[in-house]
């Protein structure tokens, strides 16, 4: 068994920042990641990082824009923390040598981004995420922080108390992809999940193959509620064939969207009369799909994004890698022709419920980055707000886990504050196929067979044994079903039914498909019998997470009967502040998911944010 003070799961922007923070606090910290850190998907981020750095801008404005962008579903304490901390964190990155784009006076450049009232998106060409990820990994090397790379975390070691709020987390179980060994990692002070987004729930996504939402699924099954899962952001400009993203920066710099008639539809059809192409992502995504659905799409699939009028010099200076992306992945030279684009899954606003210190309702368990939901983004994330989230909340989680006093959190987690029970009618039962038999490795039913008396190391050991059994079972079932088919079916159904436009019938169909997938998964097996680098095994385990999260997204979408931010319901075309100014939460409950709600916190340090109509 490995032992450290703080264990960080995942080495993207959030995980790296958390590890550095914990080390700054003097903790012995280690990162366990299924990918080598520089392979994390943070490296794909293009556009930039929002931070109020300049004269004329203020954190209050940043907070206000974020709240408005969230369609009033963000929690004010989290949003204000983000806006307050991000300038310092961004300058910290600069001090670590990050290669930001520069102004003539040598200061870092900022550009306008959708939904922002000030050009506060700090950037490094069109490869901001790459620069950020590498800069932070460099700091990791400098500090000599230990990384267990290509170790897949299978599960959490959580104690057995009756309610999640009483449980505590003491470590994780890792699977060494290189050798096939399964080993426990005991965390004396805390475990920080930073496993990134669940993009693989959909088949057309800007996310990496590794983004299977493992952390969210693990925490969910260990009893932590997951929040606002129905809010999935679809990015309006992805290349049709691969899902590769064309940054919002193109529109920020002045790129224009045209339909097949050559009309600048954002204005001509009144989708966003003021901001046009720079309207918030959900608005633009829906506009594009409406164009396509109404027959004004190109090849009935996509629209055109044109930036030729910006001139070669400006394009090469600020958006150079877009030229390469478009050429390599779509075969289109954007200096010569407009690029084809369509909406694709991009970002999950929801995730593991945390407070603004990154802590979940299980003590010693933290989450930060895309896998977490402190609720900064509410129902819709503004472009350029995820990277600051990684460094702000990564740092806070790291500091807090290592024992620094960063103040009492104002956001209650678990069923500690105000909450109300929820109810949603489903065509098939959600959750585990046989909830009672399902041996949840870390969940509550463990009371029956282990007793709550195990010491922390014992808990880690027990979790390791269970994970080992599960892996053995998968390997033994050599002729079982291949996970790939099952995953593909879930992905197709999600893209078909739980996309930008959502209607009751489709959502119900998705739940039926997911149920089928669950049943099929009961028979899943791993054909590859090797212990060495068994990606078949790893992906089979990931597919289960994909199924759990697909279901959570769909359940939330079905329950929420309103149109807010990224969540559009055919039957409910209005935002309903009367009934729905609240977060959707799901608790796994040992296999029979429970839906409940908690109110949105609109009371900030700065002011109370009164919901207003969101128009651009």
């Amino acid at each position, binding site marked *: 068994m490995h032992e450290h003070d703080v264990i960080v799961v995942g080495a993207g922007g959030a995980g790296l920042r958390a590890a550095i923070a914990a080390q700054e606090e003097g903790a012995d910290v280690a990162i366990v990641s299924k990918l080598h850190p520089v392979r994390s998907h943070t490296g794909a981020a293009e556009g930039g990082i929002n931070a109020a750095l300049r004269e004329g801008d203020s954190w209050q404005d940043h907070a206000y824009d974020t709240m408005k962008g969230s369609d009033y579903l963000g929690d004010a304490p989290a949003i204000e923390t983000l806006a307050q901390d991000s300038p310092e964190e961004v300058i910290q990155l600069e*001090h670590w040598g990050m290669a930001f784009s520069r102004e003539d006076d040598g200061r870092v450049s900022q550009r306008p981004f959708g939904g922002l009232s000030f050009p506060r998106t700090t950037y490094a060409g069109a490869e901001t995420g790459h620069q950020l990820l590498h800069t932070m990994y460099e700091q990791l090397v400098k500090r000599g922080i230990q990384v267990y790379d290509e170790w897949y975390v299978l599960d959490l070691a959580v104690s057995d108390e009756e309610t999640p709020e009483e449980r505590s987390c003491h470590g994780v179980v890792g699977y060494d992809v290189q050798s096939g060994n399964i080993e426990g990692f005991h965390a004396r002070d805390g475990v920080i999940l930073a496993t990134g987004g669940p993009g693989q729930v959909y088949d057309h996504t800007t996310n990496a193959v590794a983004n299977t939402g493992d952390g969210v699924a693990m925490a969910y099954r260990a009893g932590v509620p997951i929040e606002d899962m129905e809010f999935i952001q679809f990015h309006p400009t992805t290349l049709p*064939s*691969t899902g590769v993203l064309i940054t919002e920066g193109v529109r920020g710099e002045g790129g224009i969207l045209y339909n097949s008639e050559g009309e600048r539809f954002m204005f001509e059809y009144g989708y966003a009369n003021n901001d046009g192409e720079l309207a918030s992502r959900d608005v633009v995504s829906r506009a594009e799909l409406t164009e396509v659905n109404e027959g004004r799409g190109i090849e009935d699939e996509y629209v055109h994004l044109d930036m030729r009028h910006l001139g070669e010099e400006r394009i090469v200076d600020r958006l150079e890698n877009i030229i390469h992306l478009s050429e390599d992945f779509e075969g289109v030279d954007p200096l010569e022709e407009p690029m084809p684009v369509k909406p694709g899954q991009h970002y999950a606003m929801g995730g593991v419920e945390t407070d603004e210190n990154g802590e979940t309702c299980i003590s010693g368990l933290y989450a930060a980055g895309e896998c977490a939901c402190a609720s900064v983004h509410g129902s819709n994330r503004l472009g350029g707000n995820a990277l600051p989230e990684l460094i702000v909340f990564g740092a806070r989680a790291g500091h807090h886990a290592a024992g620094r006093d960063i103040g009492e959190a104002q956001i209650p987690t678990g069923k500690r504050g105000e909450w109300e029970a929820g109810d949603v009618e489903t065509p098939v039962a959600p959750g585990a196929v046989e909830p009672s038999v399902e041996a949840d490795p870390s969940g509550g039913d463990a009371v029956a067979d282990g007793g709550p008396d195990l010491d922390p190391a014992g808990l880690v050991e027990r979790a390791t044994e269970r994970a080992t059994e599960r892996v053995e079972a998968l390997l033994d079932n*050599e002729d079982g079903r291949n996970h790939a088919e099952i995953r593909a079916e879930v992905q197709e159904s999600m893209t078909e039914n739980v996309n930008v436009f959502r209607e009751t019938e489709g959502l119900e169909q998705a739940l039926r498909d997911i149920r089928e997938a669950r049943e099929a998964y009961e028979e899943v097996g*791993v*054909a590859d019998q090797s212990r060495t680098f068994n990606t078949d095994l790893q992906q089979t385990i990931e597919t289960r997470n994909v199924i759990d999260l697909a279901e959570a997204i769909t359940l939330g979408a079905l329950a929420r009967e309103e149109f807010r931010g990224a969540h559009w319901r055919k039957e409910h075309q209005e935002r309903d502040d009367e009934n729905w100014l609240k977060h959707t939460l799901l608790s796994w409950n040992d296999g029979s998911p429970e839906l409940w709600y908690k109110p949105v916190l609109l009371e900030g340090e700065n002011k109370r944010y009164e919901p207003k109509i969101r128009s651009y």
Partner: protein
Amino acid sequence: MSTQLPDQTEDESSAGEAEPTSAAQERRMAKKRERAAERDEQRQAEEAEAALADEETYHLKVFRYDPEIEGKKEPRFDDFHVPYHKGMTVLDALMYARDTYDSSLTFRHSCRQAVCGSDAMFVNGSQRLCCKTQLSDLDEPVRIEPLPHAEVVKDLVVDMEHFYDQMEAVEPYFQTNDLPDGELEEQRQSRENREKVKMSTRCIWCGACMSSCNIAAGDNEYLGPAAINKAYRFTMDEREGEDMKQQRLEILEQEHGVWRCQTQFSCTDVCPKDIPLTEHIQELKREAVKNNLKFW
């Protein structure tokens, strides 16, 4: 020719070597052998079907090797016929082959958009990123092998440890002795200077360059193009200051530093991020010489 440090057998994973003898494993292996033939047959049938169907297919020849699995201990090439669609990349084809024909086909990949650097392989005789290589640009059969000059772990996966070690040997992190006083004050950098280091910051650690360099293949201690480029990124960054530049040049001046480069240019040719590696290495050689001649 051995190009790897020989001390790789001792590892925390050595417990894994006991594993193949465990009962469960034994049982699985036996079953596995039984099924091997059966599955082969099935695969061939499927392949034939795919080939027969009227659609256009691409013929892949893929290197296979697994130190544990009977029949794969001896390396071999497997054939896959993959239905083609416009815009299909080598990575797409590999994924299709794995998901449809043989789930044990193993390779690293993640982002599918040339930023994570995990899928550099030897495709038709050249180091390329699979996700960034269009099938239509290649001659058939498309031969896919793991990166040369690295130890093969399994199928298309190679051991990257040595590459990482070299990358980390050049103090690959920003260092400076004069940060601005204000917490919220950034260091100034001219546009020209950022432009100068820009290309060098693009490296995604894919290892293609290192694999293509004959010198790196021969001299295991050679820092290699990627690590030198990493050092270039800092040496040329004006924010670090002159004193740091001295320190950096001293690292690069070692026997196995910049002097080993014989300007083969193959690193520059294969780099998927178009980093002018040879140019950077040469510039550093001149910097090093200049730096020392100053005092003669």
